[in-house]
């Protein structure tokens, strides 16, 4: 289990356009370059931000990863993924709305 490698990947998926594009087009090929377990790869491809936080990944990275790469980038969708469906109500804003 490697929080460090996950954070390296998350950071690149926040700031590096070419890595974001590769993730979109060929996620398996991209993730093969990183020393991640099958469980960790599943967290990334499944946008399991709650799982990654439990794994120790910095929440700023999970938020950035979501808002830069998720199919539905809205902060409310992020909060739903993080808290579970029961917490989806109510407005939550973040800088991710700039998208």
């Amino acid at each position: 289990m490697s929080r460090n490698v996950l954070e390296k990947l998350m950071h690149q998926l926040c700031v590096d356009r070419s890595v974001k594009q590769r993730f979109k087009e060929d996620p398996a090929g991209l993730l093969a370059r990183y020393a991640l377990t099958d469980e960790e790869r599943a967290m990334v491809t499944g946008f399991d931000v709650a799982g990654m936080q439990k794994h120790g990944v910095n929440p700023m990275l999970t938020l950035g990863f979501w808002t830069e790469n998720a199919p539905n980038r809205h902060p409310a969708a992020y909060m739903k993924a993080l808290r579970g469906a029961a917490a989806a109500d109510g407005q939550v804003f973040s800088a991710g709305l700039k998208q």
Partner: protein
Amino acid sequence: MGKIVGGFLVPHDPVMFVVPDAPAEDVRKRMWGAFDTCAERLAGLNATSVVIIGADHYFNFGTGCLPQYIIGTGDVDGPLDVLPGLKRQIIPTSEKLAGFIADHGHDNGFDWAVARAFTVDHAVAIPDRLIVDPVRASGQSIGTIPVYIAAGVDPYIKMKRAVELGGAIKAAVEAMPDDERVVVIGSGGISHWVGTPEMGKVNEAFDHEIMDYACTGNLAAIQGLSDDYILENGGNGGMEVRQWAVAMGAMPGARGEIIDYAPVREWVTGLGFVQLFA
């Protein structure tokens, strides 16, 4: 000889730019207005340089290099993370003083990392744009010196070291042969939870506790805050009280005055504005 002539402790909330109209009208007018007040008061200080202390948000720096503290000694622009109404631009600098602060630190136990060409993120760009730029527009020439500390990504700079770092900035400014008039701006906080399940929560009690320490110049109290206490009561974003600690450390004995404060859930932050008087 240089001198620190004043300080400000302010937020750098990017959500203000993303959804400026989200809070009630009176609240948002007050908060934008508080930045204007800071600018007006900065104009009255006749500063030649401002040192803006920000925190990386796992944006400027990645897992390959996580500096405890770093100073921009050369060209500066930003923000790296452009926002609506906050486009990237070149930021005027004070290269001579910035280099002097780094060199003085290296001679006195503070091993600054340096950035020779630095694209800052919103932590420095927001206060520079909202507080310093209006003063420049009025005709004053002010250079910005960006300082980043580890407050968003662990290992966090120790609170004691943050205060000491402020002292190192003060010592360097006062050792500078030129007649620099320097204002320090601690940029961050107060309570906010970034990307966590609690995002949107604000803790007014914690915010007032921190502002009270700032207004009374209580360095011992702010230095004594444990990481566990800050994370529990101020959130992961609350770790940015470190920037306030650096600014306070640069002005030991200074008293402060709250310019304004509001817990703004729509902007996911307790927004506190404090002026420190030299």
